[in-house]
């Protein structure tokens, strides 16, 4: 019972915190340099892991699907299957999970450490609102970066699938692309995937900055807050993915 009340209290605190962040975002357009700096540490530095992971996920998908498809003589649909699974599911979801591990944890640790070393209270003493100055740029940067990362993940994955499917396994190159262009719908498949990644970016960034801001200001507290960020945002992404898929692709 007490645990439930604690949980609800945290949820309420998180929601109020989110409202404060959203209220602070319009101010950021006056100081956009802050956001650019954060897009660098949140987005650009996550790029490498996204590129490598996307390439390998696409290549493994092509290998696995080719194995099954040859038993039905349907290798020509390989490109379509790789494209659909990446654009609809794996692109947004795996990019969000990697993003939570690579960028979300870093956000929490950074903000948590700022709190533990009393930098946040220092800012408040100087009448600078830490939510406006520290939290909101990080939240906005995460929210903007993930859709781009997910799109890059899907595109690289399709290229990886092409490399394995066409160059290695000998699927016809024309069939690979023509099946994709005939069956993948831009609005139903690609745009819905982008909407998914926007929702995931919102959730992961929110959880990451909230856990950092709300952590117990000790080294132990920062450590457990970082762990919670990764665990909670991964679970939230997977759960939300089920809900969004059920709504979008019904």
């Amino acid at each position: 019972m007490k645990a439930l009340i604690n949980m609800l209290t945290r949820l309420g605190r998180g929601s109020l915190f989110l409202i404060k962040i959203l209220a602070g975002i319009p101010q950021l357009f006056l100081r956009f340099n802050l956001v650019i700096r954060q897009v660098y540490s949140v987005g650009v530095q996550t790029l490498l892991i996204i590129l490598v992971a996307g390439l390998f996920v696409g290549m493994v998908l092509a290998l696995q699907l080719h194995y099954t498809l040859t038993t039905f003589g349907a290798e020509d649909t390989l490109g379509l299957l790789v494209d659909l699974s990446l654009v609809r599911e794996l692109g947004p979801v795996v990019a969000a999970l990697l993003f939570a591990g690579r960028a979300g944890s870093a956000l929490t640790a950074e903000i948590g450490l700022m709190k533990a070393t009393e930098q946040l209270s220092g800012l408040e003493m100087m009448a600078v609102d830490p939510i406006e100055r520290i939290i909101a740029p990080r939240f906005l940067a995460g929210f903007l970066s993930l859709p781009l990362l997910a799109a890059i993940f899907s595109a690289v994955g399709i290229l990886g699938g092409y490399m394995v499917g066409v160059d290695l396994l000998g699927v016809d190159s024309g069939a690979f692309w023509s099946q994709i262009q005939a069956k993948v719908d831009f609005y139903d498949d690609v745009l819905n995937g982008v909407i998914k990644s926007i929702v995931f970016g919102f959730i992961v960034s929110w959880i990451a900055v909230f856990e950092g801001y709300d952590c117990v200001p000790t080294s132990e507290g920062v450590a457990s807050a970082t762990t919670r960020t990764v665990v909670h945002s991964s679970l939230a992404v997977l759960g939300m993915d089920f809900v969004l898929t059920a709504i979008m692709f019904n």
Partner: protein
Amino acid sequence: MFKSIELSVGIFVGAGLAALFMLAMQASNLSSLSSDGFYEVSARFDNIGGLRVKSAVKVSGVKVGQVKEIDYDSSTFEAVVTMQVEEKYSQFPRDTIASIFTSGLLGEQYVALEPGGDEKLLENQSEIRLTQSAMVLEQLIGQFLFSKASEEKDAPF
């Protein structure tokens, strides 16, 4: 220092937009959708089989449009299929035949238009009178077995 950060963020955003562009143009149907206008014709079928919204409409095997809407008319007990055909292929005679075919043996179904010889042309919102329903595999097998059985009965032993 900040200049190089700005540059790498610019490259990142550019790469993200390029990836989206590639997904749109190369990896989805956006490039094959025509930006021209469409005009609509409808046709009535006894049975549409596995035809669905967005199935292709083809003439001589060339895709000229897609199925926009499928409805059921409960007064005539027929399926009403509304098709969008691209404006540039607007030269169909009024006695065009619409049939539902299957691409390949078990592939998906599409509407095939076969132009007739009438001098008047199909207009927007008009209806194709001559239609041929989808083949249902079970019915075909049933007919085949039936004719086989009656053959054997007539056979002069």
